[in-house]
């Protein structure tokens, strides 16, 4: 977040101050007062770049693309703007990784692969490279790294948004904030009440966020000991800098028929990032028609095989036999499979047939 600059007012002369995120001290360019940012936690907000009307448009557009017939029936309720918290923690890791590094010796040896019996009297000799462990060397390596990580301050799972944590492997699809990336355009948050939207209180404490940051940096630092055996690690995490970053999310509900649906729209890009939409049933109809056409094509062949007696054959004893039971069994299995598939598609017409954006 070093590139983020925030605007504040000098408490002495009310002149404008520009402070980089992470700074604790500045000098007012107007009155030359030396000033210190004393508040424990700095708060930043990414103001929403989309209006309520734009959110409604995004939802309707998405609905139209998923279920063109359902737009007229859908009753979209008033979207609510939520500012969800993320901790942005930076720190430095210093330490040591001790261990032993295996020492290997590589030799080339000749091996007779074939004694000549199976290849026309020729013996085949190949040269193989053999790596033998001959010992180990004691190694002491130093950890020197600094980094920052974003950690979810609130549980967003009910909205279908995975949490960012020190252990997260996946990115949050659709959001400008990621584990190591902060969005551009952050502003300092001085007064929550003066802004539109609900500011969600963080449930993850700053101590927990720092603990996760330490775990993340320790994991990165342990990479210094790659290839070592009998490893022992020690690291000091220092220079913590925390900031609370509020990210805008619009949440709206709409009803379509008897069911209600929830949609989450990114407050910065205006894209629909999570949500459920009623299915138009188009895919289901295509599969049903395909199955019907398949059977329509197969029935004349089945009838022809049954009537023409092609299933009869002469057995080894000179008598006549028929594989009609086997054939009927195969046809019955295919019919059962088709019926079962149609049953699945019928169920999809209900709840499971929704389009889910995740």
């Amino acid at each position, binding site marked *: 977040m070093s590139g983020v600059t925030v605007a*504040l*007012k*000098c*408490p*002495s002369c009310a002149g404008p*101050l520009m*402070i*980089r995120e*992470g*700074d*604790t*001290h*500045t*000098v007012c360019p107007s009155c*030359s*007062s*030396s*000033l*210190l*940012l*004393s*508040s*424990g936690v700095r708060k930043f907000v990414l103001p929403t770049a989309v209006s309520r009307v734009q959110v409604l448009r995004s939802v309707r557009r998405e609905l139209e693309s998923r279920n063109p017939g359902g737009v007229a029936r859908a009753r979209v309720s008033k979207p609510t703007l939520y500012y969800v918290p993320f901790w942005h923690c930076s720190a*430095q890791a*210093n*330490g*040591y990784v*001790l261990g*032993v590094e295996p*020492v290997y010796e590589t030799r080339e040896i000749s091996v007779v692969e074939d004694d000549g019996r199976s290849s026309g009297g020729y013996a085949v000799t190949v040269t193989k490279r053999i790596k*033998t*462990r*001959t*010992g*180990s*060397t*004691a190694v*002491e390596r*130093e950890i*020197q*790294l*600094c980094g920052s990580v974003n950690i979810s301050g609130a549980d967003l799972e009910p909205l279908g948004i995975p949490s960012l944590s020190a252990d997260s492997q996946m990115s949050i699809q659709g959001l400008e904030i990621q584990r190591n990336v902060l969005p551009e355009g952050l502003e*300092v948050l*001085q*007064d929550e009440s003066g802004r539109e939207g609900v500011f969600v209180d963080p449930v993850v404490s700053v101590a927990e966020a720092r603990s996760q940051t330490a775990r993340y940096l320790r994991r990165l630092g342990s990479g210094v000991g790659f290839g070592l055996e*009998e490893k*022992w690690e*020690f*690291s*000091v*995490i*220092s*220079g*913590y800098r925390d900031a609370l970053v509020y990210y805008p999310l619009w949440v709206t509900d709409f009803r379509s028929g008897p069911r209600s649906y929830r949609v989450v729209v990114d407050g910065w890009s205006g894209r629909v990032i999570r949500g459920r939409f009623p299915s138009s049933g188009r895919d289901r109809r295509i599969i049903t028609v395909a199955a019907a056409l398949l059977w329509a094509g197969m029935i004349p062949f089945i009838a022809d095989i049954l009537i023409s007696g092609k299933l009869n054959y002469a057995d080894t004893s000179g008598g006549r036999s028929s594989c009609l039971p086997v054939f009927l069994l195969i046809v019955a299995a295919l019919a059962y499979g088709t019926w079962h598939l149609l049953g699945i598609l019928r169920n999809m017409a209900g709840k499971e047939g929704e389009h889910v954006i995740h």
Partner: protein
Amino acid sequence: MSFTDPSGLVPLRCRNCGNDLDGLSTDVIFHCGSCGRCWVFHGGFEQVGIRFLRSGGPGTVFLPFWKVDGTVSIYQRISRKGSSASIIEGFREFTGRERGLSENQPETRRDRFIFPAFSTSLVLSTGVRMHKENFLPEKMEHGTQAVVKGGSIGPDDASAIARGVAVGVEVNRKDFLACVDLDVEVSDMSIYAVGCTPEENVIRINGSDIGLPYAAVRDSGEMVHGERGH
């Protein structure tokens, strides 16, 4: 002095003489150029002792270092041989007997650690190298107006780093360390303003071969030349 606006901005003045305190944008340690007191911002302002060392010649800049005195208790220290080698040719199974581990006696000693109070990636290795040298405070001439900038490491971090330096001292002994379990009980903390000379690529501690590359010191440009964003 107690005025705080909603953004948390407070006037930064010496609690003793009221002089404006100067520092870098991320500093938490402030030296008053007027009365010579040193303050650490740690939730509130706390006074901390400051001594000047190795003032050297012209071009010297004073950089802040933490001086931490404490008792080091080593509960367990296991070292190993530098290397192990097999006398048997070819493949063999390593049983662990060749690890050559030996446990040292637990010990307790009083020790002093001096390490950068400014942000550098070489904080531990610099602390270990400074541990080998003798840093004695000097008496500053009366009226000397020394500027000490760049102290961004607070007392909590300094305690943790002191433990790291103590581990580093054990790592840098002649034997090869396998693991160590130690603790540092801090008895005194103060600031050493150590005279350093900016060279072409490094900031050299006066009277020492210890040099910190500019690239390893976060605010080196501001600390040495007063430039921002070096």
